[in-house]
């Protein structure tokens, strides 16, 4: 779509302006995607260049370095030790010894097993003494995969440390050549609370994140390419192994299974669409209603402002599982809601809010409504703070210009709120897509979607991708590989949405930036 100049744009009617913006938005998508891949390409290119530069630097360090430097290429920390930096040298040396020791003792084994994930499964062996067959456990695919990945991490860490070791030698030579002194061990120790303090502070949190977030995610991505499930648990029943892209083919193929079962792709699509609908409504109903409640409380002339706020805020304090479980029981067939409605004589038969497969939308709408109950206090809190930050003179000038209350909301409050809370809305949307607790504790995914369940697991009409994923891992079959595939697809959806919202919108405004 052709870009208009500012003056041309201003001449358009309201509808045309909207159409123009919409058109620009959609015609911008391919460019944004292209731009994204260009960025990735640029990043890879930069990586390649810097790796090349590093290699060149290593070689030149070796060629031009003195004998201390050269020895350090093989015995890490030698240069430091020889130049009097005992502490650093010892640390380097220790790391090398530990690394070599690890590789010899077990690292090599894990690496060698990684391509097959184990060769010998559990076997029955006859025990003559007891006259019974006992199971002998051999290779453990799970451990091989896990420790294989860990070993690779370790190797990368070693290469990095080795590189630092080489670099330090070169720097040390340079410093000594200019007649200055090297840092002593005492100065090194001091620098970890001063100019290198950020490394000290990050060490613990990053170790935790790498071990308990990065590593598991990497592991589960790899699982998506294996046949790891309840019947192939890799140790006690049978090994699992690499299956390439088979799982993705299964998940994304439209042809159904045996016996007229629904295809995975159809089930996935169904659940995905509900997940998006849920995320949309859960985010925006809460957002707008929370904002209205906040505005009502903020309004001049309303009494007990603090009281209203406290009532709502206190509901945040109560652990969610209590309120969710309790509310879900309130909506049960024999729960309080049905009891109340029957007492009032409005209904004669109890409504099965979450159990009736013929009324999927009843369950879905109820869930969204209950989520409003959960979310409003929180949103009320957030929006209160921001609403109070809107400069009062904006409203005053709008009043003098003759804006009604609704117009003030439309033209001042809402644009301001959307601008300030834009990033929050995005995280809230993706958070709701993965809102396990609300769905699982309220309905557990019910009512059951028989058609979709024929594909796999016990899929219900209110199941989100994340609860479906969970069910797959806990069922009798425990198809971990499928769960991993779903997890990866969830990531792709979330990343895509974030990418569009983050990049596309600003890029339309400043499109000169990437021309």
């Amino acid at each position, binding site marked *: 779509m052709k870009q208009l100049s500012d003056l041309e744009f201003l001449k358009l009617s309201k509808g045309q302006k909207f159409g123009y913006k919409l058109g620009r938005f959609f015609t911008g998508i391919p460019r944004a995607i292209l731009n994204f891949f260009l960025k990735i390409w640029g990043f890879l290119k930069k990586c390649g260049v810097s790796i090349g530069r590093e290699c060149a630097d290593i070689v030149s360090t070796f060629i031009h370095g003195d004998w201390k430097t050269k020895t350090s290429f093989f015995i890490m920390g030698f240069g430091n030790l020889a130049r009097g930096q005992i502490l650093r040298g010892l640390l380097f040396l220790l790391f090398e010894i530990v690394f070599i020791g690890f590789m010899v003792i077990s690292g090599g084994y894990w690496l060698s097993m990684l391509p097959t994930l184990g060769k010998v499964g559990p076997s029955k062996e006859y025990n003559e003494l007891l006259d019974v067959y006992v199971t002998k456990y051999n290779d453990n695919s799970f451990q091989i995969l896990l420790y294989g990945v860990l070993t690779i991490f370790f190797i990368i860490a070693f290469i990095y440390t080795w590189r630092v070791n080489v670099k330090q030698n070169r720097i040390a030579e340079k410093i000594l050549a200019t007649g200055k002194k090297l840092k002593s061990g005492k100065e090194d120790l001091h620098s970890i609370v*001063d100019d290198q*303090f950020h490394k000290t502070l990050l060490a*613990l949190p990053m170790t935790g994140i790498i071990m308990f977030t990065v590593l598991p995610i990497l592991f589960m991505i790899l699982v998506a390419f294996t046949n790891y499930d309840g019947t192939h648990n890799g140790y006690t029943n049978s090994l699992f192994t690499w299956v390439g892209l088979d799982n993705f083919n299964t998940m994304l193929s439209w042809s159904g299974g045996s016996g007229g079962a629904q295809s995975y792709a159809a089930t996935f699509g169904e659940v995905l669409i509900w997940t998006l609908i849920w995320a949309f409504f859960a985010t925006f109903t809460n957002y707008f209603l929370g904002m209205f*409640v906040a505005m009502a409380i903020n309004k001049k002339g309303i009494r007990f402002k603090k009281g*209203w706020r406290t009532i709502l805020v206190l*509901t945040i304090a109560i652990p969610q599982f*209590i309120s969710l479980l309790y509310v879900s029981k309130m909506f049960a067939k024999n729960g309080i809601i049905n009891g109340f409605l029957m007492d009032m004589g409005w209904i004669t038969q109890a409504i099965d809010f979450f159990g009736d497969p013929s009324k999927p939308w009843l369950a879905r709408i109820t869930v969204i409504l209950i989520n409003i109950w959960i979310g409003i206090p929180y949103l009320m809190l957030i929006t209160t703070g921001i609403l109070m930050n809107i400069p009062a003179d904006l409203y005053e000038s709008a009043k003098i210009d003759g804006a009604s209350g609704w117009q003030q909301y439309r033209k001042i409050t809402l644009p301001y709120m959307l601008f300030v809370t834009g990033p929050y809305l995005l995280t809230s949307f993706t958070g709701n897509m993965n809102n396990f607790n609300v769905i*699982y504790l309220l309905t557990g995914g019910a009512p059951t979607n028989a058609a979709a369940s024929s594909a796999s697991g016990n899929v219900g009409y209110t199941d989100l991708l994340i609860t479906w994923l969970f069910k797959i891992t806990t069922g009798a079959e425990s198809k971990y590989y499928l769960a991993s595939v779903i997890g990866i697809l969830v990531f792709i959806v979330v990343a895509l949405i974030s990418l569009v919202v983050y990049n596309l919108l600003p890029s339309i405004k400043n499109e000169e930036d990437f021309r």
Partner: protein
Amino acid sequence: MSETTAKRHMGLKTSRAITNTTIHIVLIVISIIWLIPFVCIVLQSFRVENTGQVGYVIPKVWGTANYSNLFQTDFPRWYTNTFIAALVTAVLQTVIVLCMSYTLSRFRFKMRQPLMRFMLILGMFPGMLSMIILYRVLKDLGLTQENATPGLILVYIASSGMGYYVSKGFFDTIPMSLDEAARIDGATRAQILYKIILPLSKPIVIYTILTAFMGPWGDFVFARYIAFGASAGKNVAVGLYDWLSRDQISNNYTMFCSGGVLVALPVTILFMFLQKYYVEGVTGGAVKG
């Protein structure tokens, strides 16, 4: 003043009065809706004529049996598990979050931007996936089932560095010139942290402790996965959830209510005292994104 303008002035006043009354009524209705479940849960915890679910709210026979019966079950154990987890998590998670957010707010090192982007991307993976592997690893370490609590604590605090956004947003509002002045005055980075920044960050420290403390009380899915049916390893959320399962609900429904009240009580009281800081943290955090 002419008659029409007088009318207009009257109109303004009365219409304002009408809107305000309406809003007051709406707020009362909202408050009732929001409080009803909690009132119900308290009332039902004192209902002793029947342990199952019923369609009415006011107990026919009042009593404290549901509370005393709790002590015949594993509930005290679950409570202790959760309390310990909450306490330890509150301390360690706060330390880690503050380290992380202070660093990302105050230092300009080469890897800062990539690191933040990396963590943003990490956050897009459903955390649920990691459970499978973490469960197997913790099992190998002997930290599941009866020993689930230490395992849970480990997992809670290990990834807590990812939740740095809110406190980083707060640190960002403290002017950099304070750090600079302190550096010129001769303070090391560590001294700046505990002599200047931390004393100024009381609200956010309390907020971090409070949220870290509240987290374990509500954690359900992972706790259930790790406890794996072993009653001694459950936390309150898992234990109470199981009481509402189909075969147990008729016996344990009222006990669920009394247990729920006991769980909600300490957290709510704590929250009431520290409400101010919570509000500050939440409102500040949302704006910074």
